[in-house]
Each structure stands twice: as structure tokens, then as C-alpha cells.
């Protein structure tokens, strides 16, 4: 659509990205330093603000792990405690300077956070939640019972503040300034993180793990990083907290406190560090005002969690989104999508070779020794009646299922034993029969995840990623929807988002799993036109579909499956007139009719 647009500046969004927010960071730093001079040197107000600031750092960690990456962590108070005890024991028992003790506490928290993240290699969702609860409970037991190390239930007294010549950080208001500076930096980092490659990978994992892995995202590493960052911030908050109050005890870091931190994040809005600030601020100050609730405040928190989940799923900060202007259109021309193999294609070259592929589910042989060679620059169709093993084939080829036997090679390299994201790195891209888009992200962000496919030429350059994503949207005609949330689009349009996501990664081979499923007649015709355009560019495509009309329009080569076996393979005309294929689709002809 924009090919006729003036070649004015590149889209504004690209220029805005790189240094975005640094002036705001500087202004916020000056602001909090000025603010801290207004707070009295000690007393009640100071304590409240100090508590809010240190808690906020820990809650920001929850934004990363829960909000961005979608993993429930119910041990944030434990990480807070590890940081706190690092500072307390470090300064009191081991005579370390404050910052050394803080570093030790933060490191300890991070190590345990990474360890919990490692558990996510095998466990998801509720399992992981349970692991975090267990960790939380074990830490509480250790803090209370290992008296020789932790001082037990009495806690640790006389925790030192840092001594930096000239800064007087032992003074309350100066120490508060230190906490606020840390908080501002953390908030800025978390805010920026959301729009980085890692941040998008986390959100993709949150929204759809399977689609994320086929976009080349290493789900495991992403989760470990999210847990690590979250625990690091928990430890940092806890370490600052210990210095702030000079005394800590195990009951400040129990399971109940983890729930309090969770409530703060949920109330404010777990999708944004500003939500975390808002939620923490409210829940630190409100209980002070509502002192009569002292007896039941945890009950109120519990009820609040349910009410927030039901009525305010995006938290208070989420409400501000509704006030913002509607999704803007990104204008400006970009370099057209460079599709591989556009010129000088060697059609005899095999892009993907599959030999003897088998997948058995118990006694069911969904695939039983299938061979296929997809030649570079061709459109290869895989057809077959329902239940013939087509989708299983795609899932095995893309690495979502492990094959029982057989070999898969992409561009001559064997990938049989590799994970899904590794195959994507080698140049495989796919779409899904049941659409799998990242629902919590915009159309542009969805496609950017595709453009950031490891192995893609521009994956490491943020500005070019945006440009490539816009080019892919131009190709499928969705530029005007770039800034809309993908969930607001129609089913048919979401399918194009998926295709654009795959194309943006500049794949060697594009796998389309029943792209016509669920589309109406007009949409099917548009899809046919799009596929012919892709074919014209020489992209290697493996398409699985029922729609014979569509397949006949685009396919250079057809493989037919029935009951997990290949029953025909060759050019469209030969295959579609093959008696076994007709029999598979229309039923066996009568015996006498054959004569």
C-alpha cells in the first residue's frame, strides 16, 4: 500500500526507539533527588516512603516474571529476604561494607532465582508456582531454625548503612535518595525492557509458548532470564530495605509477604513498571490510613486479589490505556521484503529433505515412513484426507513432536534431534491451523518477533527489525493495523498476521498448516493471490491443505498422505489423477468398474 507513498523520512517509530526515555530518566532522577530533600531526616513519613521505595523495586521484579513472561512466582518475599539477610548478616556478622554485602545478597537472590528458573525446563504454570511456594516455605523454615547463621526468629539488629565520604548516606533522607535513585533506574530499565528483543521474547512466551518456539525463541533461556532478573530485583529491594530499617526478622519475608507483593503488582497493573509503582504506593500508604483494618488486612488483600483478577485484569495502570488515543497508523516507506531465493534459483537444490519419517502415538502410527524432498524455489503441497497425518507431519518437522524414526534435513544439515527454536534458526518458519498469535501484543510487535528470528540477517538491529516488520505487513496489506492489538482483528486477518510474522523472519522454507481453514470464500481468494505472489518471489513453501482449488492453483509438486503413509508424489496433474489418490478422497471404485 505504501509503495506509492513519498520517500520521505523512514517511519517515525524507528527513529524514536533508540534513545527513547533517556531524558525522562534524567528528569526523574533530578526529580527524586529534589523530592528527597523535602522528606525529614527521620520519622514516620521517611519510613513510609522508604518502605514504598524498597518494596517497589521488588514488585518491579514481578512485572518482569509475571507480567512480561507470564510465570507465577510466589517467592518474591523470599528473594527480598535473601537480599535483606545478605546485607544484615554481611554488615553485622561479617563486617563487610554495605555495598559489598548488598552485592552478595543480590547475587545470592539471583542464583536462587536462576535455579528456580532452571526448574522451568521441565515444569510450567502450576508446577512452577508450586516450586516457588516450596522454596518460599523452606527459606522461612531455614531463617527461623538455623539460628547459628540467621539469628533465628529474633532477627538481626544494628544493620549498617553505607558510608561514602561526603554523601552522608547514613542520614535518613540521604539514604532515601539512594533508594529512590535505584528505584528510578530500575523502573526505567523495566519500562525499556518491554520494547527490547528480550522483552518481546518474554511476552511471546507468555502469550503462546508453542508459537514462540517456532519463532526461534529459546523458551527455557527466556524464562530463566525472567526469573533471574526478577530475583535480582527482589534481592536489591530487600537489601535496601534492610539498610533502611536497620532491623529485619524472618516474619517480614514469609509467604504472606509474597502475597502482599503479588497484590501490589496485580493492583497497579503487572504489565508496566509504572503500575508496580502505583500498586506498591497505594498498598503501603492505604493500610496506614486504614489502621482499623490491621487485624484483617491480609484477608482484604486476598479478597482484593480475586476482585482484581475479575474486574481489573490489567490493574489500575491498565485503565490509563483506555484513555489513550486509538492505535495510530505508521506512515513512511520501507524497503520491500527481501524474500530469499528471488533470483537465480537452482530448482534442483533440495531445501528440505525428509526420509523415513515415523511418529507413533502408542499403537497408532500417525506417520509411517514418509519420504519427501522439497525443492528450493517451489511450492510443495501436502494433501490427504482427515486423519492422514498431515498436521502430525508438520509438527514433527518443526520440532514440536519428536519423531519415532526418520531423518529431517534443512539445506543439507540434519536437524532431526534439534529443538523447535533451533530449526527456526536454520530457516524454518510456520503458521498454524489453529491460529497462534501473541494476543497481548500489537500486530507490529507480533511481526517483529518473527523478524527477530535468530539467524535472520537483521535480527540484532532494532531499527531494521521495525522496518522489516513493516515491510512484511506491507506485503500482506496490514500496515494500517500495525499498532492495533492483534486480538481485536478478525480471524482471517489474524491469519495474515501469522503469515507476515513468518515472512518477516526471511525463512528458507515456509510451512503453511491449512492456511485456508476457517476462511470464507473471498478470504480464500485473497489467500490464493498472496500465495501466488510469494511463489512469484521464489520462496520455498510447503503447504498443507484440504482446499484442492487452492492447492491446484499454486502447487508445483504434491505429496499425498493416507493413514500415515505416502500414497502418491509428483506433479499436480499426475498426482490428482492417480487412482490411489482418487480412491482415498472419493472411496474405492467398484471392482468391476476397474476392468
Amino acid at each position, binding site marked *: 500500500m505504501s509503495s506509492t507513498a513519498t520517500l520521505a523520512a523512514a517511519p517515525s517509530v524507528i527513529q524514536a526507539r533508540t534513545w527513547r526515555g533517556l531524558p525522562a530518566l534524567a528528569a526523574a532522577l533530578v526529580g527524586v533527588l529534589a523530592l528527597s530533600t523535602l522528606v525529614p531526616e527521620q520519622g514516620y513519613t521517611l519510613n513510609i516512603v522508604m518502605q514504598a521505595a524498597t518494596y517497589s523495586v521488588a514488585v518491579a521484579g514481578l512485572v518482569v516474571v509475571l507480567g512480561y513472561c507470564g510465570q507465577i512466582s510466589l517467592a518474591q518475599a523470599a528473594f527480598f529476604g535473601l537480599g535483606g539477610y545478605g546485607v544484615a548478616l554481611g554488615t553485622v556478622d561479617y563486617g563487610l561494607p554495605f555495598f559489598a554485602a548488598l552485592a552478595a545478597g543480590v547475587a545470592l537472590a539471583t542464583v536462587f532465582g536462576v535455579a528456580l528458573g532452571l526448574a522451568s525446563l521441565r515444569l510450567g504454570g502450576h508446577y512452577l*508456582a508450586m516450586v516457588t511456594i516450596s522454596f518460599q516455605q523452606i527459606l522461612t523454615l531455614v531463617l527461623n531454625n538455623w539460628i547459628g547463621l540467621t539469628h533465628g526468629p529474633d532477627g538481626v539488629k544494628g544493620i549498617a548503612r553505607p558510608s561514602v565520604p561526603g554523601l552522608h548516606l547514613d542520614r535518613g533522607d540521604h539514604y532515601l535518595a539512594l533508594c529512590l535513585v535505584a528505584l528510578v533506574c530500575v523502573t526505567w530499565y523495566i519500562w525499556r525492557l518491554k520494547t527490547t528483543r528480550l522483552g518481546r521474547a518474554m511476552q511471546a512466551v507468555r502469550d503462546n509458548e508453542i508459537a514462540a518456539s517456532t519463532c526461534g525463541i529459546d523458551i527455557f533461556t527466556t524464562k530463566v532470564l525472567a526469573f533471574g532478573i526478577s530475583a535480582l530485583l527482589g534481592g536489591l529491594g530487600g537489601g535496601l530495605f534492610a539498610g533502611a530499617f536497620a532491623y529485619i526478622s524472618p516474619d517480614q519475608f514469609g509467604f504472606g509477604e509474597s502475597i502482599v507483593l503479588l497484590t501490589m503488582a496485580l493492583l497497579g497493573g503487572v504489565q508496566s513498571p509504572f503500575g508496580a509503582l502505583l500498586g506498591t504506593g497505594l498498598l503501603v500508604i492505604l493500610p496506614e490510613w486504614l489502621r482499623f483494618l490491621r487485624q484483617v488486612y491480609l484477608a482484604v488483600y486476598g479478597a482484593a486479589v480475586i476482585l482484581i483478577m475479575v474486574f481489573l485484569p490489567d490493574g489500575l495502570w491498565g485503565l490509563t490505556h483506555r484513555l489513550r488515543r486509538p492505535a495510530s497508523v505508521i506512515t513512511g516507506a520501507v524497503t520491500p521484503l527481501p524474500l530469499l531465493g528471488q533470483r537465480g534459483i537452482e530448482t534442483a537444490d533440495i531445501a528440505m529433505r525428509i526420509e523415513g519419517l515415523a511418529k507413533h502415538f502408542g499403537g497408532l502410527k500417525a506417520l509411517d515412513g514418509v519420504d519427501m524432498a522439497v525443492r528450493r524455489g517451489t511450492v510443495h503441497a501436502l494433501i490427504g484426507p482427515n486423519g492422514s497425518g498431515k498436521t502430525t507431519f508438520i509438527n514433527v518437522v518443526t520440532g514440536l513432536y519428536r519423531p519415532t524414526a526418520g531423518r529431517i534435513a534443512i539445506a543439507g544439515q540434519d536437524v532431526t534431534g534439534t529443538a523447535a527454536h533451533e530449526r527456526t534458526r536454520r530457516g524454518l518458519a510456520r503458521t498454524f491451523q489453529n491460529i497462534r498469535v501473541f494476543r497481548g501484543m500489537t500486530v507490529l510487535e507480533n511481526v517483529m518477533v518473527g523478524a527477530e528470528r535468530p539467524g535472520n540477517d537483521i535480527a540484532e538491529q532494532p531499527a531494521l527489525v521495525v522496518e522489516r516488520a513493516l515491510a512484511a505487513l506491507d506485503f500482506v496489506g496490514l500496515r494500517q493495523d500495525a499498532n492495533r492489538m492483534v486480538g481485536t482483528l478478525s480471524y482471517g486477518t489474524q491469519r495474515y498476521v501469522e503469515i507476515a510474522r513468518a515472512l518477516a523472519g526471511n525463512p528458507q522454507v515456509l510451512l503453511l498448516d491449512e492456511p485456508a481453514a476457517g476462511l470464507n470464500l473471498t478470504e480464500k481468494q485473497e489467500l490464493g493471490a498472496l500465495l501466488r505472489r510469494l511463489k512469484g518471489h521464489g520462496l520455498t513453501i510447503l503447504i498443507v491443505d484440504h482446499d484442492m482449488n487452492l492447492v491446484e492453483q499454486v502447487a508445483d509438486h504434491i505429496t499425498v498422505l493416507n493413514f500415515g503413509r505416502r500414497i502418491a508424489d509428483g506433479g499436480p496433474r499426475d498426482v490428482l489423477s492417480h487412482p490411489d489418490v482418487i480412491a482415498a478422497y472419493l472411496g474405492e471404485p467398484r471392482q468391476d468398474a476397474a476392468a
Partner: protein
Amino acid sequence: MSLIPQLLFTGLGIGAIYALVALGFVLLIRAASVVNFAQGEFSMLGAYAMVILSGALGIPYLIALPIAVVLMAGFGVLFAGATYWPLRHRGQMPVIISTIGASIFLANTVLALYGPSPEVLPGLFDTPGFEVGGVFMDSQYLAIMVTATVMVALQFLIFEKTLLGKKLQATSQDKEMASLLGIPVALMILITFAYSAALGGLAGILVAPVLFVSVGMGAIISLKAFAANIIGGFGNIPGAILGGLSLGVVETFGAAYISVPYKDALAFGLLLLFLLVRPQGLFGEKIAEKA
């Protein structure tokens, strides 16, 4: 008195409780894909209901018991209405978080009403128990084991032999298909919540004379039920029972031979070990995502 058979007896008794709670837990996972972090609170509430009915109101034990269980079934429906129903189309995580909220809410509401000091609930029998071959058979533990066995048998009969049971099974296997076959899926899920809460309540009442009735009992029981599930295989019914029993035994031996304060840490340690080494549990998991 011989220590090892005695510990085994006690362990199986406490394990039977974990198994009962785990059973209710696993049914919710299967029927509604709800991982209920407030499962133990059902037990805590059941025990407090019994404290009110038989203690404060003076209703005879054997009449108060069924009343408390029926009340808990009703509470299960309320619970479903608050934590599951509004969020049922939003995936698993919001429901998990809301059951965590419910757990905190229930425990602390009871805390505000009754305070932290534990209540005493009498057992089913007046006699403390008797001795067989050097093992003291505590009457309450025997009652727990007998009830647990009866409940498991009853549940097996209902699930395998009645139309209601078939409908519940169909709902747990494929909600969409079940609803196409005319099974009222919503009703089946509510029944599961009611049954799960009743089972949890019953377990709480039975265990009360052994553990005391306290606000904290819910959280502990929740975690044990969860651990029992992991050990047995998530979503697996025989696995939940076996997991509960083995957890009870391991914990009792651990408390006797290793350390009392770290008794609960032992259960968590076992849980972590299973999660990391054999996450599918002893019997394997029932749930897998389709690509």
C-alpha cells in the same frame, strides 16, 4: 512398643488425610482444569464448621458431621462462583491467582474471627485406641483410614457405575464434546466443586483431633495435597491416593529420625525432588497440550 510399625501406622493415617484432600484436588484439575491453591482451606473450614456445630451449638457429633459436610458442599459452589466462574474463559493463570487470593482471604478471615490459638475438636470415639502386637492403634487414625477407604471405594463406584459418574468423566475429558452430547457441563463442574469441597471438609474434620484446628492448617494441607499429586502423577486419581499415603509415611519417619522442625521442609524437598527428577510422577501425567 516397636517403633517402625508404629510410625508406619501413624504415617498411613496422616497419609490417608493427604490422599483424601488430594483426591478432591485432582477431581477439580480433571473436571475444570482448575489448580486449586485453596484446597486445604476447605479442610480448615470444614473443621471450623464442626467446631461451631458440635462445640458451640452442642449438636451431637454424628449429626453435626453430615451437616458440616453438606455445608461444605454448598460452600464449594460459592467458591466456584467467586474464583472460577468469572475467569473460566481467561485461561489457567488468572484462576490460579484467584484461588491463591481465596486461600489468603479464607485463612485470614477465620483468623480475624477466631484468633491464632487452635481449637480442640473431639474425635469420633471416646476410647483413645488399643494395642495390637506392640502397635498402638489410635482410634482416630483408624477412623481416618476406614473413612478414606470407604470414600475412595464410593467414588470409584459412582464414577464407574453410574450415569452421573460417566457424565462427570466425559466432562473432564472433553468439555466441548460433552456439551455437544447434551451433558450440562456447567452443572457437572459445579458438582465437582461441591464434591471436592465436601471431601476436603471431611478430611479436615477427621484430622482435627490429631492436628488441632487452626488457621494455618489449610496452607499446610494444600501443599501436602499438591505434593501428593506431583508424587503420584498430576491429574492421576490412583496416583493422588498413593502419593498422599507415601508422603504421610515419609514425613512421619522423617520427623522421627531426622528433625521435627524440618518435617514440613522434608515434604517440600520431596516435592522438589519429584518435580525435577520425575515430574510426571509415579503414574504419569494425564494432561498434555496439543499443537
